[in-house]
């Protein structure tokens, strides 16, 4: 074998498609378009890096995938920028006694504490998914989180809102979200990196905000009364666009 390739492989700096087995098992995301793009869905365990501004529907995108597992194991939310709404979490199908909120004091130890907590939660095997909000994650830190997630068989979702250009992080899946200004229902997802496939250009997935029947603006948009009654406004599955 080429000695350079051999060297790189020993240092684990190259990844061969032949070693795809450990990443083959996927968890369906609940969105058909997304499933197709991601070769089946999210990885079973690992670090998922999502670049998006707050409020584009990023949690509504990822929560259905872990809903089943979250009934048995904890979900940890580390250093969320705002308060999490219990009503929203119940609406998404999580049980509140399996949800752990971890706040971090904003001092010089905050990064270290954040990453340590996420790593501990991941390694313990008691969590189904960990959500962490952090800017400018470094390569070594990302590697540590990825290994911890694989060891504890859970998913770590890293949300980043910053705009700066990232060097390639060793994650299982990296996506960027954006929304067209005119579009209310659909989110543009660009797969930057995935371990079992190629990076993809942006495609759009319908992640509607939920609205209740009877609100005046909704009535205006809706069709006949028959449609209004029949339509399940809480539907989440989007048809292939």
């Amino acid at each position, binding site marked *: 074998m080429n000695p350079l390739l051999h060297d790189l492989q020993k240092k684990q700096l190259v990844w061969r498609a032949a070693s795809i087995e450990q990443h083959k098992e996927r968890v369906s995301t609940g969105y058909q378009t997304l499933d197709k793009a991601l070769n089946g869905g999210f990885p079973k365990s690992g670090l998922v890096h999502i670049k998006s501004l707050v409020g584009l529907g990023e949690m509504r995108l990822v929560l259905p995938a872990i809903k089943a597992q979250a009934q048995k*194991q904890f979900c940890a939310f580390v250093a969320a920028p705002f308060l999490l709404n219990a009503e929203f*979490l119940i609406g998404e199908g999580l049980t509140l006694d399996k949800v*752990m909120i971890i706040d971090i004091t904003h001092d010089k130890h905050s990064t270290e504490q954040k990453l340590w907590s996420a790593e501990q939660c991941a390694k313990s095997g008691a969590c189904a998914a960990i959500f962490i909000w952090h800017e400018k994650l470094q390569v070594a830190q990302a590697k540590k989180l990825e290994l911890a997630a694989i060891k504890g068989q859970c998913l770590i979702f890293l949300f980043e809102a910053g705009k700066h250009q990232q060097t390639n992080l060793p994650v299982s899946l990296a996506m960027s979200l954006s929304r067209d200004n005119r579009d209310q229902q659909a989110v543009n997802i660009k797969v930057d990196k995935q371990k079992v496939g190629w990076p993809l250009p942006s495609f759009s997935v319908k992640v509607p905000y939920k609205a209740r029947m009877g609100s005046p603006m909704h009535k205006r948009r809706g069709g006949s009364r028959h449609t209004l009654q029949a339509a399940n406004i809480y539907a989440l599955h989007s048809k292939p666009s």
Partner: protein
Amino acid sequence: MQFDTRSLWIYLYFPKLHLDVIQRQVNAPEQLALPRVIYDPKANKMLQLNQAALEVGVKKGMGLASASLLCDNLQVHEYNISIEEKALTQIAHQLYLVTSDIALDTPNGLFLRAQNMLNLYGGLQAYWRVLSQVLAKSGVEVQFASAYSVNVAKLLALHKLNKISDDKAHLHKCLLACQLCKTDIDPKDQEKLARIGIKNIQSLFEQPLASLASRVSRFSINVISELRGEAPAKLKFYYPPEHYHDYIELLYDIELVDKLLPIIDKLLLSFEQYLLIRNALSLTIKLTLHQREHPKVEQTINSALAIYKQQDWLSIIALQFEQLKLESAVYAITLTCPKLELADIKNADFFAQKGTHVASLTLLSRLRAKLGDEKVRLLRYSQDFRPERVTQFMPVHLNDTEQQSTQQKRLLSASQSRAHALAHKNEQRVFKDRPGFILAQPETLSEKVTILNGPERIVSGWWDKEHIQRDYFVAQNNHGQQIWVYKTPEDKWFVHGYFV
């Protein structure tokens, strides 16, 4: 308590208790080989010497100056009677596991009532074998003797008899050879008796008691009559304390928290053995660090899961002590456990979720130890129309929550449990269109947004003075973020949440 004069007693004498305590803490072998003495500064006398010191030529009762002349690397420690008392209590505690009647003779003696134990152990020699095993483990030098009377046993032990037997005649013979100076008789009376030529027990017994009665004190008369076997002794027995309390004094002051951990490790090891014998676990322990120039530091260590193993406690303590700052050096550490939990049998299915339950409680303990209790929380949903009141925080349960819920289920009858389940289902009827993030303090809207949905008027809170009247809208800004905004009656717009 008074006892008859026919029961067998054993006396244990520890001549070098203070020295042995210090030598136990020394780890390095070259440190052990150094000559070491315990010195009484008030009387200027050497009290206890180790083997190395004896070889150099230091003698008991020597002054400090002469001793230091003989040996230049002599390790001198000041005599502290409280250390001996504590060590004595510890030995009594260990012996309590094998023998029931123990009386403390501070500072360095123990009375054991052997008569009761003879039936249990099936003979004196078997009983003594068990005792000597326990004493060997504690690592102290001991002189022992047995006799049919309390003071006789003490006297024989002080004379280094080192033999356990129940042969009355033999014991009497040994007793007669003993010197008066080692008895408990008042020293002034001993002088008086010495002046009339009574220096050992044999000559003392030759005199009738009545003739001595007028010349010596009442206390000495009691001792003598007890020695003769004519009067019973009065003793108070030792009972082990109810709560676990352990105190260790460090050989030298330690300022760095990391260096304290190996010593805490030793404390935790004896705590683990204490728990193991009692089939108990514990949820909280308290560590007190005694600082030399500042008041003592008390740290309470909680674990979400009841544990007993030394490594489990040590990992939690290591995390909690990372933030600890010591103001001055620590010279002693105390470990107390206020409450013990019974370790109960887990009857659950082997394949049930017990594995992750233990893992989740261990995780919670570690997170709370490092970050602090307030930073790790659970959520609670409260049925209130005001959005800021919906989410409330709960501290994490300290007890085994799953066990509680199974107990609860067992206690509820069938109809009660049905009602309970129905109420629980009703509780979960939530508004499904609420945003994922709620801002703790609503911010004023500062950018141009497009309204997608609304309005939804919430008027609430007139009963507890937090009256709100807001029109909520779902809006989207230029970047595509979906925001929950509201308008007050004064036409002011605020941002209250994000649809994550």
